[in-house]
C-alpha cells in the first residue's frame, strides 16, 4: 500500500511493506510546486491525479497513468467562465480538492477550486468543464460569501462526495458557504446545513454561510454523513436531513474543533478526528501542545483519546483537512501528516503511533492508495 503526500513544496509517494511496518519514499515530485491534493483513481489504480501550481504561475492539474513515474498536464485546467464586458469575473487561484466520479462513469472526476467553484472532467482529467449549475447559480455569490470571509489561503470548495448508489447525487462543502447537495448531477443545488451551528453568523439558523472543514459520506451507508466543522463535529442521517453535533461528548478542555475527519471502511459508527485549539484567537495547533487523535466507536456517543507514541508535550503542529486518511487493512491503518512535515502511522486503528517520515515541507494532503 501507499500514501500519496502533497506538500507546499512538492509531492511524495510512501510505500509500505506487507505488514505496514517499513516504509520507503519516492520524491520529491514536482519540487517547488504547491500540491493541494494527489488522489488515486480507484477505478484505474495506476492512475493518479494531482493538483499543483508553482507559486508564481496559474493552477494546473497533472495525470499519471503509471503511478507517478510520468505525468501529463491537463490541456484545459479548471477555469471560470469569461465575464461579460464591464463585469468582474472569477479567477481560479488553485485547485484544492479532487474526487473520482462514480464507478459507472470511469472517466469522470470532480475538482473544487479556490475561490469556490466546481468543475468536472469527462476524459479522466485531461480537460475540465465548469459545472455551471453551481458556478453560474444565481445564489452562488451569496452562498460563497465575500472574499474578506476567506481563510488565509483563500476560500475553498472541498469534500466533493458522490453517492455510490447514484452518480447524480453529489454533496460538496465550502469554507465558507456550507454543505450543498445536488440530485441531478450538478444541474441544481440546495443548502444542507440545518442543525449546524455557525457562531460567526448573525443568525443561528442561517440557511447557508457555514464553515464545514471536511465532510465524509460513509461508503457502506451512503445515507450517513460525518462532518468536522468550524463549529464542532456533526453527523447526519440524510433521510432526517438534520445535522446533530456529536462533538459535545469530547473532553471540554480539548473541544471538538479540527480540520479533518476519517471514517472506518467497515464500521459506520467509527470515525477519527484530530482536535486543534479553536479557543481565543484560534491558534489551530494541538490543544496544549499535546497532539492526539480521538476516535468514536459508537457514532459520536463517546470519544477516546489515542496518543500512544505521539509527542507528549511541546508539539504545536496542525493537521490539515486532506491530511488524514485510513486504509482498508485488518486492523485499519490510520495516517496523518503535519504542517511541520511529519507523517504519522498507526497499524492498530489509532491505538499506537509511529512517525514514519520527518522533515518534509508543510503537508497539505495524505491519501491512501493501493
Amino acid at each position, binding site marked *: 500500500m501507499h500514501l500519496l503526500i502533497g506538500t507546499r513544496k512538492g509531492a511524495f509517494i510512501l510505500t509500505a511493506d506487507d505488514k505496514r511496518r517499513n516504509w520507503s519514499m519516492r520524491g520529491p515530485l514536482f519540487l517547488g510546486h504547491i500540491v493541494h491534493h494527489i488522489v488515486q483513481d480507484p477505478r484505474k489504480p495506476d492512475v493518479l491525479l494531482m493538483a499543483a501550481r508553482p*507559486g508564481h*504561475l496559474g493552477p494546473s492539474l497533472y495525470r499519471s497513468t503509471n503511478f507517478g513515474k510520468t505525468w501529463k498536464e491537463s490541456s484545459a*485546467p479548471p*477555469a471560470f467562465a*469569461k465575464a461579460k464586458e464591464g463585469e468582474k469575473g*472569477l*479567477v481560479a487561484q488553485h485547485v484544492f480538492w479532487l474526487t473520482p466520479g462514480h464507478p459507472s462513469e470511469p472517466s469522470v472526476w470532480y475538482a473544487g477550486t479556490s475561490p469556490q467553484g466546481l468543475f468536472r472532467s469527462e476524459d479522466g482529467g485531461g480537460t475540465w468543464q465548469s459545472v455551471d449549475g453551481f458556478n453560474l447559480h444565481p445564489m452562488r455569490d451569496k452562498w460563497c460569501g465575500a472574499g474578506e470571509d476567506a481563510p488565509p489561503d483563500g476560500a475553498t470548495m472541498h469534500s466533493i462526495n458522490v453517492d455510490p448508489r447514484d452518480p447524480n447525487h453529489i454533496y460538496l462543502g465550502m469554507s465558507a458557504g456550507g454543505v450543498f447537495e445536488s440530485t441531478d448531477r450538478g444541474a441544481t443545488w440546495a443548502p444542507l446545513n440545518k442543525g449546524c451551528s455557525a457562531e460567526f453568523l448573525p443568525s443561528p439558523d442561517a440557511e447557508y454561510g457555514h464553515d464545514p472543514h471536511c465532510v465524509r459520506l460513509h461508503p457502506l451507508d451512503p445515507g450517513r454523513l460525518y462532518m468536522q466543522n468550524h463549529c464542532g463535529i456533526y453527523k447526519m442521517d440524510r433521510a432526517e436531513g438534520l445535522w446533530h453535533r456529536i462533538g459535545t461528548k469530547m473532553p471540554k478542555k480539548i473541544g471538538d474543533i479540527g480540520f479533518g475527519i476519517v471514517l472506518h471502511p467497515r464500521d459506520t459508527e467509527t470515525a477519527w478526528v484530530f482536535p486543534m485549539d479553536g479557543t481565543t484567537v484560534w491558534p489551530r495547533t494541538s490543544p496544549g501542545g499535546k497532539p492526539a487523535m480521538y476516535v468514536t466507536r459508537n457514532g459520536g456517543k463517546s470519544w477516546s483519546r489515542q496518543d500512544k507514541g505521539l509527542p507528549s508535550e511541546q508539539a504545536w503542529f496542525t493537521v490539515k483537512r486532506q491530511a488524514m486518511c485510513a486504509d482498508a487493512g485488518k486492523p485499519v491503518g490510520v495516517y496523518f501528516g503535519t504542517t511541520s512535515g511529519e507523517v504519522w502511522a498507526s497499524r492498530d486503528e489509532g491505538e499506537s503511533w509511529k512517525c514514519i517520515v520527518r522533515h518534509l515541507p508543510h503537508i497539505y494532503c495524505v491519501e491512501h492508495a493501493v
Partner: protein
Amino acid sequence: MTVFVPTPLRSYTKNRAQVSAAGQTVGELMRDLDRQFPGMRFRMVDEQDGLRRHIRVFVNGEAAPTLAVPLLPNDEVQIICAISGGSVVRVGLIPQ
C-alpha cells in the same frame, strides 16, 4: 520578436530561456506562445484575460500591464516572475 522566458515557465520551452514569437499586442503574443508551447498561456494569463498576480511583462524595458499593449516586430519582450514579500509586490529579474 524575441521573448525572454523565466525559469518557472521553461518546462514549456524545453528549457530555452529565449524564444521567438509574433503578435501585434501582448495578448496576441501570448496566444502565439501558447500555440508553440501548449499550456503556457494559462500559467501567465487568467480566464478573465488578466496577467496573473506574479507575472510581469516588459516591452523594451517598459512595463506592459495589460494584454492590450501594442507590439512591433523588433520589440524585445521579457516575461518576469515578480518577487513578492510582505504586502508589497515588487518586480525583479530572475537570473538568466
